[in-house]
């Protein structure tokens, strides 16, 4: 599997570490110990879409430029559709 790092070019799978599904830090404000925000964080930390199909994931180029990448990949075929650098936190939908 080759991943086209936007900084380093196409590199082998072995140079990367997978974090998993790209999730956003909940865009919330208020009482962080209150039930609503706790529920929002629990959902963000623990629940996943986990689709069979196109999937947006966070990968880390550990043996290369050490950038965090947003990779769109088909989990049925492992085909990589898009790779972008991500310097902004993912926006919650």
């Amino acid at each position, binding site marked *: 599997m080759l991943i086209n790092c936007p900084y380093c070019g196409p590199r082998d*799978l072995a140079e990367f570490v997978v974090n998993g599904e790209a999730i956003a830090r909940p865009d919330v404000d208020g009482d962080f110990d209150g039930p609503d925000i706790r529920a929002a964080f629990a959902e963000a930390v*623990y629940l996943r879409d986990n689709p069979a199909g196109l999937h947006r994931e966070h990968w880390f180029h550990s043996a290369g430029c050490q950038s965090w990448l947003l990779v769109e990949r088909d989990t049925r075929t492992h085909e990589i559709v898009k790779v972008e650098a991500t310097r902004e936190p993912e926006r919650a939908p």
Partner: protein
Amino acid sequence: MTFSGFELLKNALNGQTGWTPHWRKAQPKASYDVIIIGGGGHGLATAHYLAKEFGIRNVAVIEKGWIGSGNAGRNTTIIRSNYLLAGNIPFYELGMKLWEGLEQDLNYNAMVSQRGVLNLYHTDGQRDAFARRGNAMRLHGVDAELLDREGVKTMAPYLDFDNARFPVQGGLLQRRGGTARHDGVVWGYARAADKRGVDIVENCEVTGLRQENGKIIGVETTKGFIGAKRVGVSVAGNSSRVASLAGLRLPIECHALQAFVSESLKPVIDCVVTFGAGHFYISQSDKGSLVFGGDLDPYPSYAQRGSLAIFSDVAENAIALMPMLGRLRILRSWGGLVDMSMDGSPIIDKTPIDGLFFNGAWCYGGFKATPAAGFCFAHLIAKGEPHPAAAAYRFDRFASGNVIDEKGVGPSPNLH
């Protein structure tokens, strides 16, 4: 028909013409009391215990392919109850006791072989960690022995004891652990359930979960709508896909787990051995093949095949532990699709939808749990309350901080 020595003799004399199919290829009725989605080991075991223990026989098992074609047909056959945490030990030990009586219960040869599971340790620190786990097991009444180097040499003389990087110092042994023939387990449960009136419907995929006023009323399938009062989802590897039919998101990420078999050999490994300095485990099947595996593939996948990088890693582990394995030819390799959860432990729980129950998140440990998961899921469906041994396997344990994290790596599914 009950299998017995008498039946063998009778059929030897009548040209083997008296054997009957082990289960009916049922067509679905209009409705059932309970539908189990998923005809793997867990789903069929659930149907068997619903019928046998809880008297609920108006049950259908709906399977999209042929029964046992998922992870039940792809695992490395290991059975054991050598866990560390209090949330896990009673459950897996319930399972171990069910394994011990399984072939009598099912009247079926599932080749349950209690040949011993030996976890090797290679450092003083690891020895102490394994002693801790062995003591935790013994506190729950489960057998565990800590062997020293000489003890391991007696059991497994073929290991590389003096390897400079990974010297074998000893091992934690569960003598009652071992292996069972995965296909035999599936077929045995199918036959026993069918005998009690459970319909096993193959080649029937669930495409929708129909609800009315927050309550499940049945399933849409490729063979039409089938009504049900209660529905149990037991489709490890497809849990998120089926749950999404009810609008539910799960604390699960799917990964491929690879396994390998070698060419057949004369008996050489007579127990299950796990490597303490890497992730690798090996045993020998009754056909003579060495059956082994190692780490997960690290990226989410539904492809049921893994990468060469992991294959290479498993081979390195194998040769570090037993250099003789370097001479073997690999006959076959394959991948299964595992539900990795956010703490590495399973879920057997109700869902927010009345009448819809879930059994999944088994990570790579589902096969050994087959009898206990079936029993506890049947208990939950029949009584509406969890079995005490599975009481901690709930969805809400994540938000409430009661995770059962044997490895202690937190909410990273691919690290468990």
